[in-house]
């Protein structure tokens, strides 16, 4: 295999070796069902309890506020539908933004069909919501504010603490999708005033198919998955013991080294941002210059289209992603890029490069070397580029 440079850590991460090692005993040695009372079962149960403690501590919450799920999407669905259904006697109004992940957005759209009303706050050119607009959107029948912690495409970090304060002042539940933020910044749910928070293991070097929902004590919420008595009778299904153990190990590793991780990632990110800017013309950095995830680079590269970029980069071993319509099943360009005001064409040429723990300086150098000629080749093919050159 040729050189491979993975720069799509926001899509998913490789599992760390320590995570895999931690999971191994639970596949076929301590494999018992945690609901069983015999030794095999108690081993699994103990492992889950320990995992819950680790995750609770990482958020400054308590273990009985952590509920394991099958990932970020399930957590988002549970939070939004669960709050909507359990609190409809109070009202049927939900506030969210137009840059949420589809797991929140499509759930909100589904609830609209079910008779709920949803306000989609717009964002500014950096992807930030306006606190004043949020305040103005709250009504007596508002039951939930769901606003993501950090955006998966452009990395913008929302003013979570202020949102939490507003939610609390207005007696409205506040859910945040922290799938991208968790493991990339310090999160204290109490300090931030968060009532519900979604996280996912595979975004921080843990296993795919495991996540959690933080539910503050006392929050009124319906179940999404009914059945057995697992997760204190709030989320049924035989627990994914290895997944949960791996998740906790990943969280532990992330939080032991959180500051170092952030520093490392941020410096690689900035090197990439600067390096590309120097070599390529007509670049626009999407997202906020400072309120941004440590690992996120999102450039619009004018006059080229994202999928062609991705394919060309894949040919030289670089893996990253794009908000281009052509890479999505739906043929619509990224709703996030449209929300920050890009034109179709510019959104089309967006490239997201996300760095992570296994990214090296050499990887960054490699991208800075390989990307410019690819862009140039594609621009030479582009009917849009002609005009610009003509005008030069």
């Amino acid at each position, binding site marked *: 295999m040729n050189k491979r440079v993975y720069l799509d850590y926001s899509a998913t991460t490789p599992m760390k070796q320590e995570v895999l090692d931690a999971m191994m005993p639970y596949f076929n040695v301590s494999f018992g069902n945690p609901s069983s009372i015999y030794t095999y079962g108690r081993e699994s149960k103990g492992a889950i309890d320990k995992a819950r403690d680790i995750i609770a501590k990482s958020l400054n919450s308590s273990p009985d506020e952590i509920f394991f799920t099958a990932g970020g999407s399930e957590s988002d669905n549970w939070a939004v539908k669960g709050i909507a259904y359990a609190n409809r006697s109070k009202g049927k109004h939900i506030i969210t933004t137009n840059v949420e992940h589809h797991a929140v957005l499509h759930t909100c759209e589904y609830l609209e069909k079910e008779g709920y009303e949803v306000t989609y706050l717009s964002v500014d050119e950096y992807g930030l919501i306006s606190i004043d607009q949020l305040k103005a959107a709250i009504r007596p029948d508002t039951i939930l504010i769901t606003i993501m912690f950090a955006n998966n495409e452009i990395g913008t970090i929302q003013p979570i603490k202020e949102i939490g304060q507003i939610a609390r002042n207005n007696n409205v539940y506040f859910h945040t999708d922290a799938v991208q933020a968790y493991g990339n910044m310090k999160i204290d749910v109490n300090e931030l005033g968060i009532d519900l928070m979604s996280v996912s293991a595979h975004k921080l070097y843990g296993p795919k198919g495991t996540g959690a929902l933080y539910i503050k004590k006392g929050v009124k919420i319906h179940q999404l998955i009914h059945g057995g008595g697992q997760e204190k009778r709030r989320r049924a299904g035989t627990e994914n013991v290895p997944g949960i153990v791996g998740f906790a190990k990943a969280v532990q590793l992330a939080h032991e080294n959180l500051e170092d991780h952030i520093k490392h990632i941020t410096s690689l990110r900035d090197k990439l941002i600067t390096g590309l800017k120097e070599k390529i013309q007509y670049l626009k950095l999407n997202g906020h210059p400072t309120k941004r995830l440590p690992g996120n680079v999102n450039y619009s590269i004018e*006059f*080229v*289209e*994202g*999928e*062609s970029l991705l*394919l*060309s980069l894949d*040919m030289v071993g670089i893996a990253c992603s794009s908000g*281009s*319509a*052509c*890479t999505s*099943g*739906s*043929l*619509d*360009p990224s709703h996030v890029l449209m929300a920050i005001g890009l034109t*179709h*064409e510019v*959104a*089309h040429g967006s490239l997201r490069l996300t760095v992570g723990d296994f990214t090296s300086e050499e990887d960054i150098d490699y991208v800075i070397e390989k990307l410019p000629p690819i862009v140039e080749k594609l621009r*030479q*093919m*582009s*009917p*849009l*580029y*002609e005009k610009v050159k003509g005008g030069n």
Partner: protein
Amino acid sequence: MYSDKVMEHFMNPRNVGEIENPDAVGQVGNPKCGDIMKMYLKIEDDVIVDVKFKTFGCGSAIATSSIATEMIKGKTVEEALNLTNRAVAEALDGLPPVKMHCSVLAEQAVKSAIYDYAKRNNLSYDGLDGFDPNDEHDHHHDIEEDH
């Protein structure tokens, strides 16, 4: 996702560029995905003697443009009008369902250029019946459903 043939045409596209003093130029775009294809023709005695393209689009848009130019070069205008998107896709050993509309774009780009040629020279072709270059080439509503 893509066949080797698509990747080969994408990485080494044929006939990229512009023709100076072309006899016809056509440009089409897919408003949904935003891709744009521009085609230049040189026509002598009703035969397409040269063709060049420029495309702003996905891998399959570039590959379909490339192979379409190969398929019409040396053909008469009438023959070129018979080029179907299906033939383009087949020549590339197939396209993913969601990418079939890219081949439609290639077919439309050829037609659009010939439409320009017909207009400039006051000609009419059966193959252009019902073709409107300003039509929104949004042919993939149905395709979207079934992937």
